[in-house]
């Protein structure tokens, strides 16, 4: 504890279905304190009915994302000192997803779009076949790898204004995963995938705002992936093979 005298003024969004508003709490400031720690301190010491979600607490599960001072972040790995402004914090549920209660959002729409984007591996081999020999310097493998380490935290989804404006838009995370699969030479579902990401809510709706890439906690670049999809779909259109 650095200084027991210092307190944070924390505004937290409280919502029980429609009556959403901010409430302010005073939380003692500690040396090693994440946003998630602040939220759970409030729940443990001030209001036991405050709801929030987390699991791994080390940036692997993507359950804990919230809006912190207006920016989407994984809260378990966001140190207070990184985001605090004049001892004030504003913590709200992740943008662009329906609120279940307080800081907890329903992530189903996010995952429904994941499936809708055909961001699911389509096997070409079975468990009885040998594994595909793919060298680490294979160009496609390198591209696939560049997009693969997504924890589906929906931070990018919350950052994107197109998601906010267009309810059909599949969003950066699902499209990023699709791009990884487009470069997966083991996958057998490419034609359907390109079709899925070209439909009404597909990759062409992205305006390269790049908020997704800016906020992705894993430093992935969905913008790059989406432009890859735009190229791939355009190529297939021009080949008239659709």
């Amino acid at each position, binding site marked *: 504890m650095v200084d027991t005298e210092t307190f944070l003024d924390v505004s937290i*969004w409280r919502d029980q279905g429609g009556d959403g508003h901010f409430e302010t709490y005073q939380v003692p400031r500690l040396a090693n304190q994440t946003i998630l720690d602040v939220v759970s301190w409030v729940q443990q010491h001030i209001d036991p009915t405050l709801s929030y979600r987390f699991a791994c607490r080390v940036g692997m599960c993507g359950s804990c994302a919230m809006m912190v001072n207006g920016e989407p972040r994984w809260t378990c790995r966001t140190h207070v000192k990184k985001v605090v402004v004049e001892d004030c914090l504003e913590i709200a549920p992740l943008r662009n997803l329906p609120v279940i209660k307080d800081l907890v959002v329903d992530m189903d729409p996010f995952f429904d779009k994941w499936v809708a984007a055909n961001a699911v591996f389509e096997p070409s081999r079975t468990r009885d076949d040998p594994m595909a020999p793919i060298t680490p310097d294979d160009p496609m493998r390198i591209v696939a790898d560049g997009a693969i380490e997504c924890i589906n935290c929906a931070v990018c989804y919350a950052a994107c204004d197109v998601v906010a404006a267009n309810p059909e838009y599949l969003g950066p995370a699902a499209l990023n995963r699709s791009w990884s699969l487009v470069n997966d030479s083991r996958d057998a579902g490419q034609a359907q995938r390109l079709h899925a990401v070209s439909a009404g809510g597909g990759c062409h709706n992205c305006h*390269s705002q790049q908020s997704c890439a800016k906020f992705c906690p894993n430093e992935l670049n969905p913008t790059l992936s989406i*432009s890859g999809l735009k190229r791939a779909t355009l190529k297939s259109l021009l080949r008239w093979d659709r």
Partner: protein
Amino acid sequence: MIESHRGHSLWFAFILHRLSGIGLALFLPVHFYMLSLALTDPGQLDGFLAFTDLLLVKWAEFGLVFLLAVHMFGGMRLMALEFLPWSPRQKTYAAMVVALAFFVSTGFFLQAI
């Protein structure tokens, strides 16, 4: 509620591109209409063109040329982003678009006065 997820240069580049697009789309019908006056009522067009000699109007024209330039260069930036290999210098390019647009429209302005 604080909404600072938008506060970064590439988002501003997006909004600039969109607003310039809207601006051009609003201006264009007017522009076309004015031009077609050329034959139907040349006097009125000349009157209009004289009106464009006013300084205030010069400034407005500067704005228009800026919109056109910034939208065009911005559009080229977007297409480069989409069609060429990825470059990590996105922010630099966005800044270059604005700088180029200023350069062109200032050139126009200086010629016009």
